[in-house]
Every structure is written in C-alpha cells, then in structure tokens.
C-alpha cells in the first residue's frame, strides 16, 4: 500500500491539493531545521516545480534532501508533479527529474492547486495503484 508524501512551499498550492485529496499524507517540512517525516512504507511523492527558464532548480531543495536517503528512495513508487503550463516545456519538470533519478513513473501532473478533475483522477488512481501494489507484493 502506497501512502502520500508531499512538499509545499509557503504559497500552499500543493498543500491545498493534498487537503482536498482527503488521504493521509506526510509533509516534507519547508525549513531545513525541522525533522523529515519517518517513512516506513511505500509512498507516492507529490512535488511542485521551481525551475528557471532553462529548467535549473526544478526540484525543491528540501525534496532533494528528503530523497538523499537511499532507504526513502527505495520506498518511492511514483511521483505526481505540480506546476503551471505557463512555464512551457518546464511545466511540472520536477516530477520528470525525480522520475529519471529514481526510475519510477510520473503518475500525473496538475497545475497550481489542481482542478476537481485532477482530484478525482489522483484519488481513483492511487486506490488503483495500491491495488496493483497488492498483487505484486
């Protein structure tokens, strides 16, 4: 069974998305001084994007720190990216960067705090994704 771990900056878009999702979720803290959540089980990561026009700096530093631990990385099942299509080719780029690094799929991408359609898709998808997990474990 895959849980949800997310990062959201002070603007709170991703946090609002996760709140509407209504699933138990652990938050990666904004401040480096705060402790990382304890991860014991497989999880899906929801991550916003902060890249410049060239795609640099897409993955938030705190998410990099979080994934720097190989035990956490091993439990990562997939990634959901957030961003804004206004940023063109770098839309939700952080999800692609993490997917490449960790060899997991990009499950979904949404803009800002997501639409009702995004919420439905991700909620249903995560249930199904959990189901698939059960078959393979």
């Amino acid at each position, binding site marked *: 069974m895959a849980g949800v771990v997310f990062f959201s900056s002070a603007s709170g878009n991703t946090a609002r998305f996760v709140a509407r999702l209504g699933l138990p979720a652990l938050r990666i803290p904004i401040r480096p001084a705060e402790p990382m959540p304890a991860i014991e089980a497989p999880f899906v990561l929801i991550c916003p994007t902060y890249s410049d026009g060239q795609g640099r700096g897409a*993955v938030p530093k705190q998410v990099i720190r979080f994934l720097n631990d190989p035990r956490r990385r091993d439990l990562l099942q997939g990634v959901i990216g957030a961003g804004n*299509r206004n940023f063109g080719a770098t*839309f939700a780029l952080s999800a692609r960067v993490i997917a490449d*690094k960790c060899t997991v799929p*990009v499950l979904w*991408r949404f803009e800002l705090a997501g639409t009702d359609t995004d919420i439905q898709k991700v909620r249903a998808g995560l249930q199904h994704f959990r189901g698939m997990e059960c078959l393979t474990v």
Partner: protein
Amino acid sequence: MQAVARAINWNRLDDEKDLEVWNRLTVNFWLPEKVPLSNDVQSWATLRPAERELTIRVFTGLTLLDTVQNTVGAPSLMPDAITPHEEAVLSNIAFMEAVHARSYSSIFSTLCLTREVDEAFRWAEENPHLQAKARLILDEYKAGADPLKRKIASVFLESFLFYSGFYLPMYWSSRAKLTNTADLIRLIIRDEAVHGYYVGYKFQRGLERVDEARRAELKDFAFSLMFELYDIEQKYTAELYDGIGLTEDVKAFLHYNANKALQNLGYEALFPPQVCEVNPAILAALSPDSENHDFFSGSGSSYVIGKAVATEDEDWDF
C-alpha cells in the same frame, strides 16, 4: 518627526519567497531583440487582411494592459509592501511590464504597416470593452484604495485579463504561423505566471493578518470583480473572434485561466471542469510536451519512466 531612510539588506530576509521570486525573475530576464521576429515576415503575408487586423488589435489590447501594469499597477503595490524586498521585486515586475509593452511595438515594426498600427491604437482608445476592463482595474489601483483589493485586481489583470489576447498567438502557432512571435509571447506568458503567483502569495499573507469578517468581505469582492471582468471579457472576445469563428474556443481558455487566477489568490475554482476544456492544440502551443501523464488510466499517453541512472549518494544533488 522624519522617518529614517533605510538600506535594503538582502542577507536579512523576512520572507524567503521574496528572494526566491527575485532570483526567478532576474534569471528569466529577456528583451525582444533576442527573438528573431523578422523570420515571421513571410508567415505574416499568408494571413488574410481580417486576420491581420485581428492580430494587431489583440496585440494593441495587450499593450494597453501591460502599460497600465507598468505605469500604475505594479508601482501602486509598492507602498503596501510589507518587506523592503517585496518593493524590489515589484520594481522588477514594473520594469518587465514595460519590456512586454515594448515587445508588441517590436512585433508591429517588424511585420506591420504604420497606418495599420495607428488605426489599432485608435481602436483601443475607443473600444468600450477594453476601456471598461482597464477602468475597473484602475479604480482599484487608485491612491487610498484598499491594499488587499488592489492585489486582487493586480492578480486578475496578470492571470486572467491577458488571456483573451494570448489565445491568438497560441492559435497561430498551433497552425505553424507566426511561430517566432509566439516564442516571444511565451516569454511574456511565463513572466505573467510569476507575477500572478507572487502578488497572489502576498495577498494570502495579508489575509492571515485580518479577521474572519474581513476575509469574507474580500472573498465576496474577488468573486464579484471576477464576474464583472468576465462579463466584459465575453463581449470583448465575441467582438474580436466571432469573425473567425473562434469565440467558444477562446471562452474555454478564459474559464480555465479565471480559475487559475482565483487559485493564485488561494480561492477555489469558479468555472466547472466541463467549460474549461481548452483545445488541446492551444495547450500544446502553451507548453510543448504538455500531453497528460495519465499513468493511472493507462490510456497510452506518454508517461515517463526514468532511464535507469546509477546514482551515488554523493551525486544526488540534482
């Protein structure tokens, strides 16, 4: 008593978002000279006269909004700034709006006849819908107006009002026309996203300092201003796009962007998903490689599973 003059210290931040956005905006700095607009001369010649007139008018309307934001909007937000760094970011925003306004004149001087452009500037001054939306926003920018309502107006200009205009270059680009012009417009679209995000973020910080009744008042104000602006945008859109039969397509794009503008303020969507289904060709023009990564339904979309990259913990600094 005189106020003490203070120097800005970027090594002492009250709000880290200020530095994050400053860095983003300065790294993204650009000028229209960087885009080879003259490569669109041949493409421009393939447009029919009515299409050319429409394009010039749309760009003139955008110039007007950028001018408002450059000379009035962004500067009017400065006295309300909570941190000195916020003022510095706003000065960058104000200047980039001037670059945007200047860019449309670069497009005009490259592609159009002076007579055509002069006619469009006259049209902009006389067009009731364009004037009405500018007036609604300018009313909120007035000295002595409510600082949080001013931010709402600013976000609606940056994240909603531009999009009846931005639609057209994305449409031409999706048909392989005026593709260099579209490249320039994408740079503007990128900047406006950061501007709307930042001012919306500062609005939400401001909301944290006021009581429940005031929050309810501001939310009512935001939604009724959105309704008023939308009503004008509908008419503006119909007047411009009825001739080439694109009005309904543009309206879906308006609904989609209105919802994003509200999200920048921390509010929920106004328009339901079924009226926000933007033409996929327009979405693709906006963000190439914007196909949905629908891994969940396995609908054959191009979800990305990473190429296996062997990593050491030490090089895990992407």
